[in-house]
């Protein structure tokens, strides 16, 4: 230990005691400023908040930390899982060398992206370009607040939970367009425009597929919907709605076969061409989190949420969600891309009438 200190002294300060003393003084000053800030500003704010809200604050805070943990843990896991699943479907194995079974691959990827140069092209529309990665990622966190992981593991059970989730997931479309318009690039623009049409076209069937579920459970709160499935999962009663919801969900998250906005071979680019480093990884984080959210919602609405025998509810919830995520990945490696006008035709001319018919039939049967 002493040897190491001596070596650092020699290498970093050149053996010069004056430089060491100056460095120590500088460090002490910085420490003093930090401690003063913590005490005066942060401490006083915390005290004020505590006297207003009490323990609720702690619960909210812990909940948000839990949600962030789930989101980032999910992203790390899915990056690895996607590569492994892809590998095995393509008669090869995915990452293998980086840690046992390639488990440390996600960490290597994230560390590399953190340390990459962040290039901001000169001519971009700065506010839009810089805010797009945030606008695409933050609504996902908000949407995670209402998802019921277990009967008592939910940050807040808002009584209009469904509306909250749908509202915040529409913001993704806005963010993609901000990215496309803000990076002043013909191809990103085309990618952004396509994404908007796709997003709007597929939100409607998603909504129309959820309404029968809401009608049958009589409440807009997500926990209430899960409780209403204690005897029978809704997928048995509403198979059509489940399929429509699932397909629209895959289209909303811009996954193949609906990934035209980020289509690589068509226009070399997509809406995230001009982003590098951490900004780019925010787009990918948002995509994986969206995948998790729509699968979680599909389990909540149709597959019974956290209900299940023997195992704790949380385990059932994650099992069902990851099963649906596996199916989404399976789609990606099986189907080619759908052409854009076929995509829109499929939504407007097939899914929406089907969803409306389903709605009518459900409403009629419920009345009887």
């Amino acid at each position, binding site marked *: 230990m002493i040897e190491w200190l001596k070596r650092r002294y020699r290498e970093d300060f050149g053996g010069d005691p004056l430089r060491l003393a100056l460095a120590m003084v500088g460090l002490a000053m910085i420490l003093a400023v930090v401690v003063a800030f913590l005490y005066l500003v942060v401490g006083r704010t915390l005290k004020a908040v505590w006297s207003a809200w009490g323990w609720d604050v702690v619960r909210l805070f812990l909940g948000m930390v839990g949600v962030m943990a789930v989101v980032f843990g999910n992203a790390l896991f899915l990056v690895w899982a996607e590569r492994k699943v*892809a590998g095995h479907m*393509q008669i090869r194995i995915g990452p293998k060398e980086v840690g046992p079974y390639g488990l440390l691959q996600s960490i290597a990827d994230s560390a590399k992206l953190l340390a990459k140069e962040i290039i901001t092209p000169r001519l971009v529309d700065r506010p839009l370009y810089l805010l797009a990665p945030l606008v695409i990622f933050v609504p996902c966190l908000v949407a995670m607040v209402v998802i019921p992981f277990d009967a008592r593991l939910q940050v807040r059970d808002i009584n209009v939970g469904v509306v909250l989730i749908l509202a915040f997931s529409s913001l993704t479309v806005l963010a993609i367009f901000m990215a496309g318009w803000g990076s002043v690039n013909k191809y990103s623009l085309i990618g952004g425009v396509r994404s908007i049409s796709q997003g709007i076209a597929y939100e409607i069937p998603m909504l129309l597929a959820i309404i029968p579920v809401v009608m049958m459970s009589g409440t807009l709160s997500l926990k209430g919907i899960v409780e209403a499935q204690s005897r029978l999962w809704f997928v048995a009663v509403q198979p059509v709605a489940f399929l429509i919801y699932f397909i629209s969900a895959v289209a909303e998250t811009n996954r193949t076969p609906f990934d035209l906005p980020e289509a690589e*071979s068509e226009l*070399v680019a997509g809406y995230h061409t001009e982003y590098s480093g951490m900004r780019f990884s925010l787009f990918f984080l948002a995509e994986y989190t969206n995948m998790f959210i729509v699968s979680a919602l599909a389990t909540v609405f149709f597959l019974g949420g956290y209900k299940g025998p023997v195992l704790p509810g949380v385990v059932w919830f994650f099992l069902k969600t990851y099963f649906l995520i596996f199916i989404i990945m399976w789609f990606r490696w*099986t189907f*080619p*891309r759908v052409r854009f006008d076929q995509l829109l035709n499929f939504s407007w001319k097939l899914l929406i009438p089907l969803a409306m018919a389903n709605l009518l039939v459900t409403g009629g049967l419920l009345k009887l």
Partner: protein
Amino acid sequence: MVAEELLRGLEGLGLEIREALYERQGFWFDIHCPRDRIVEVAEAFDEKGYWIEDVLCVDWRERLELLYHFNHWEDPRRLSVRVQVDPADPEVPSICKVFPGAGWHEREIHEFFGVRFKGHPNLAYLFLHDEIDFYPLRKDRVPIPEEDKRLLTSMDFSPEEEDAFWINMGPQHPSTHGVLRLILKMRGEYIERAEPVLGYMHRMQEKMAEVRTYAQYYPNTARLDYVGPLAFSQCFVGAMERLCGLEVPERAQVIRTITLELNRIASHLLWLGTFLLDLGATTPYFFAFDDREQILDLMEGLTGARLTFSFFRIGGLYEDLNDGFLEGVARFIERMKKRFQIYDDLVTGNIIFVKRTKDVGVIPREVARRYGATGPTLRGSGVAYDVRRSEPYAAYSDFPPEVVVRQEGDSYARYLVRLEEIKRSLMVLEQAIERVPEGPFRLQKTPKKPVPGEVYFATESPRGQVGIYIVSDGTDKPYRLKWRSPSFSNLAAFTEVVKGQLIADAVATLGSLDLVIPEMDR
């Protein structure tokens, strides 16, 4: 037959016709045409249903000679029309109103030789670029005069109307077509005009041939079309054998056939993988490459190379078969027959794939004829023309392959044609590996220098008809060497067909044409 009728008509017009010896020269008749009457002659060919194979130019120092090669689907005898041009006044009427496929050939001759074509809509640079200030393929260094330079740099990409804009695809493609740049004039999502910019891979193959001996030049033939190199090798080697009148031993011919068919299967498999990668499906790429690796293992054991085989020699092969090659081929045939089920399940029946490729990029027969399209692009449009049947080379007269034809002409038809061609190649292989005769694999004595003269040879590569035209002056270096590349004519047909399509459809059509850029750019 058709050729006799045509020739009688041309004789009536007062043109001089000479019969050529097919076994030594590669074409049947030579028609000498004064330069003002070339359009009349072209119209006569067009009326009788001929298609344009190639337009090329030879620099004989005191004169430039233009050769137009025409061929017919039902009566496949090559006719060659010659026009002599004075280098001091190099102007020839253009035939691109009659045969639009000649348009690009004429552009190429203009920038390489300086021959101006009257009536051609666009004589700008096709392969070369601004830094070059001489005509490269002329024997002496002839600088480009001012007004010609202005003509060459006259292509302009400004938006002509209000709602039209130019979009650029490439030259860096994620979908590995190679370095092809397509400038598309778009109106909304629909393409109005496609202008390919070639020449990013122009590696001066034809100029190099004039500086290297025949033996030194031979490995370059594999670098032209790196996916199916043996067809080009066979073309070069066959042309020299035809010129010198060499009789290649039977064993060499049969082994050549076996390796050519293996190469065809490997090329179609690679095309399958990359075509689906273009459309967005990433999994068939891995399956196709897995099958291709089996073939490459066999070829590596035989020739020593995985991709650019230099296996043929003038007069036979480089080396005899190694042990286990024929058993390996038999095992591969068995394995491949079982793999078709995977492709049928994953791709042919995939509804999204069908919707992306059915009725997309239909190439009508007349367009294919006027542009000189060949290969699966032509056979998908209902024409049963295959060089292996019409001008058999190697051992194809002993094992004639069945020609696969489909009538629709869309990308799905071209996909099915290629899949079927793999099956037919497997049948040819099955027959050929049973009947490999004993004997020498190479001629003992080959001449040091070839006979002076000219020769044309055509083979069927997985992309279409490959042709080579060699002029030899008796030394050990070629005087002029010209390649007829199938992707060149197929791409010209594509620019006609892509008008009015969406970009996604254009990508699918481009993928279904199976282009390899270096064979276009030479």
